């Protein structure tokens, strides 16, 4: 008993045995592949199908209703194998048809003569060479920068191992006609009877050709090289895919880690804090736009291209079919994400649109004294964070993030020459906002003290924001004007604020500066002279 299928061939319905059906569809596929490079291949195939249908209907009668394996074999013998068709039609059966026809040589790893994975001996079997030569080439390429190793690994992955006898026969390939006969034997062992005739024809052709085939080594070698190049090309594609997929995956992981603040700061240095994306955004816009929303936008706008990179890399490696509409869908989502990003950018820009500043003069008690002392308010909560080596630096704005995730801004202390003989100090506070009123509110929210007491100026080490407030461009500038020839002495802990004149001072010792005609210079009281730092340095070097 056999299962039958119903097929529509050239517009006629046939019942066909399952095995016969398999053979027929295999044959038609082969023809399809074979003719695919010709113009009008579909016409050719349709004509052939109609003819096969006609031949089948001749075989059917009242008592015989099912197409059997024998029928199909007879029909195939009548219609001819692709190689036979080529030969009769006068087309050269050359390299371009070799890849298409199943009977031709294929590339396999040779498990019988392997040293590692049988890649070299597989190539050797293909080229009809001794494997020693191929191995030698690989060793040489290995010595020359290890490229051979890469090729070897890729070929190992790409090329299948010759497992069955037929694989091994195909691996060695032999001459093309003999391989066709081998193929016939292998594929059609059950259908020998219908095949004998055409085989005889083929053998005759082989014998006829044998005399002329002495030059065919080069032909075979040429084909081999084409095949090897095909595999190398495929290998390169896989390699590219591998790089894309791994890079895509790596960057996706990095992106997620970044977006959710698992690791990685916007700015990281030895003494600069890891300001993570969620914290940074919360600090900046968290009061107006939820951080989660921004994380999603980030994942969409940056993540989708990375995902497509990963996906296409995988496709290059595994050659699976594209997922329908995935690219288009992703692109649409990406465009929407981009729109939201632009909208958020505009919103953030609006939050910072208006700038307000307030300038106050701090009246010193003894503006005419020789030395101005600059100290901290010892009861300021910021004192605890002096020497706290985690800085946030953005352009000329600097601050620290406290353990409580609060933002402390470092006052910007500038030293200038006074136009008269008096010390004077002015303080400028800055803030921004959506509108003027809001900017002023933010300005008023800055917590920073400064006051003169005796010959000293006291300031808070940091300017703080009201709790739960976002940063809106707040900052404090202190401008100290020093008369020429007079001194300014900072508390040693001012080093921790890293002002921009900090580089002039020794790493230890007093922070004592003198205003000279050419600007501010460090004054070394130990040398008891007016020598500049340079002279002092030159002295000690001598």
């Amino acid at each position, binding site marked *: 008993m056999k299962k039958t299928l119903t097929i529509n061939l050239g517009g*006629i319905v046939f019942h066909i045995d399952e095995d016969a059906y398999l053979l027929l569809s295999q044959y038609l596929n082969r023809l399809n592949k074979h003719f695919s490079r010709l113009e009008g291949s579909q*016409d050719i195939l349709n*004509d052939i199908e*109609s003819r096969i249908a*006609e031949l089948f209907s001749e075989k059917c009668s009242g008592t015989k209703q099912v197409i059997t394996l024998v029928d199909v074999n007879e029909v195939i013998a009548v219609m001819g194998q692709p190689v036979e068709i080529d030969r*009769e039609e006068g087309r*050269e059966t050359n390299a371009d048809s070799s890849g298409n026809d199943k009977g031709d040589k294929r590339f396999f790893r040779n498990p019988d003569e392997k040293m590692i994975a049988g890649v070299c001996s597989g190539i050797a079997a293909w080229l009809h060479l001794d494997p020693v030569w191929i191995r030698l080439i690989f060793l040489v390429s290995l010595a020359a920068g290890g490229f051979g190793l890469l090729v070897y690994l890729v070929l190992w992955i790409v090329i299948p191992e010759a497992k069955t006898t037929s694989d091994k026969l195909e691996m060695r390939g032999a001459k093309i006609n003999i391989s066709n006969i081998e193929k016939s034997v292998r594929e059609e062992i059950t259908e020998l009877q219908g095949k004998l005739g055409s085989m005889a024809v083929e053998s005759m052709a082989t014998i006829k050709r044998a005399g*002329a085939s002495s030059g065919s080594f080069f*032909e075979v070698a040429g084909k081999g090289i084409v095949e090897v190049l095909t595999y190398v090309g495929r290998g390169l594609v896989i390699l590219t895919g591998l790089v894309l997929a791994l890079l895509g995956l790596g960057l996706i992981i990095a992106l997620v880690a970044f977006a959710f603040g698992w690791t990685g700061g916007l700015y990281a240095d030895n003494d600069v804090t890891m300001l993570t994306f969620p914290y940074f955004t919360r600090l900046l816009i968290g009061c107006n736009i939820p951080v989660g929303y921004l994380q999603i936008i980030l994942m969409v706008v940056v993540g989708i291209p990375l995902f497509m990179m990963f996906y296409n890399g995988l496709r290059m490696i595994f050659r699976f079919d594209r997922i329908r509409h995935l690219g288009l869908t992703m692109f649409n989502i990406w465009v929407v994400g981009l729109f939201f990003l632009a909208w958020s950018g505009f919103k953030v820009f609006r939050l910072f649109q208006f700038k307000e500043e307030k300038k106050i003069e701090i009246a010193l008690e003894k503006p005419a004294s020789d030395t101005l002392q600059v100290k901290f308010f010892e009861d300021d909560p910021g004192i605890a964070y002096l020497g706290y080596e985690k800085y946030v630096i953005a352009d000329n704005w600097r601050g620290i993030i406290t353990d409580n995730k609060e933002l402390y801004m470092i006052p910007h202390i500038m030293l200038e020459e006074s136009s008269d003989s008096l010390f004077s100090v002015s303080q400028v506070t800055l803030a921004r906002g959506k509108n003027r009123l809001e900017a002023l509110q933010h300005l008023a929210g800055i917590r920073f003290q400064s006051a003169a007491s005796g010959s000293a100026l006291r300031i808070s080490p940091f300017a703080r924001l009201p709790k739960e407030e976002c940063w809106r461009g707040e900052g404090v500038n202190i401008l100290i004007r020093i008369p020429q020839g007079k001194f300014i002495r900072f508390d040693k802990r001012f080093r921790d604020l890293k002002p921009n004149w900090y580089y002039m001072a020794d790493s230890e010792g007093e922070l004592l500066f003198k205003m000279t005609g050419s600007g501010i210079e460090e004054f070394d009281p130990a040398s008891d002279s007016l020598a500049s730092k340079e002279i002092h340095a030159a002295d000690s070097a001598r």
Partner: protein
Amino acid sequence: MNTDNQNAQMRKGVLELCILSIVKEQDAYASDIIAKLKEARLIVVEGTLYPLLTRLKNEGLTTYRWEESKSGPPRKYHQITDMGIQTLADLKADWKDLVGSVEKIIQCV
């Protein structure tokens, strides 16, 4: 290999000539053409014919029409075009020249 190739090229030309002759005589259905070519032992496998027919059609030497059939789906009848008739005449002349020349030489030897 070389002789084989020439052989193949020659046969290709000859097959085209024969097909054109057959369809010029009478519009023909693929099976008719096959039967005639097989009878003349010019082809062994039928698959050979279809790429040739398609090529002739693509080159504008033949065309086809569909004709209803009593015993099955409609059939494709091939017919020759004016261009085909012209080409056929040329091919025929070439063929006769060739046969004449070859005959002369073969008989002399």
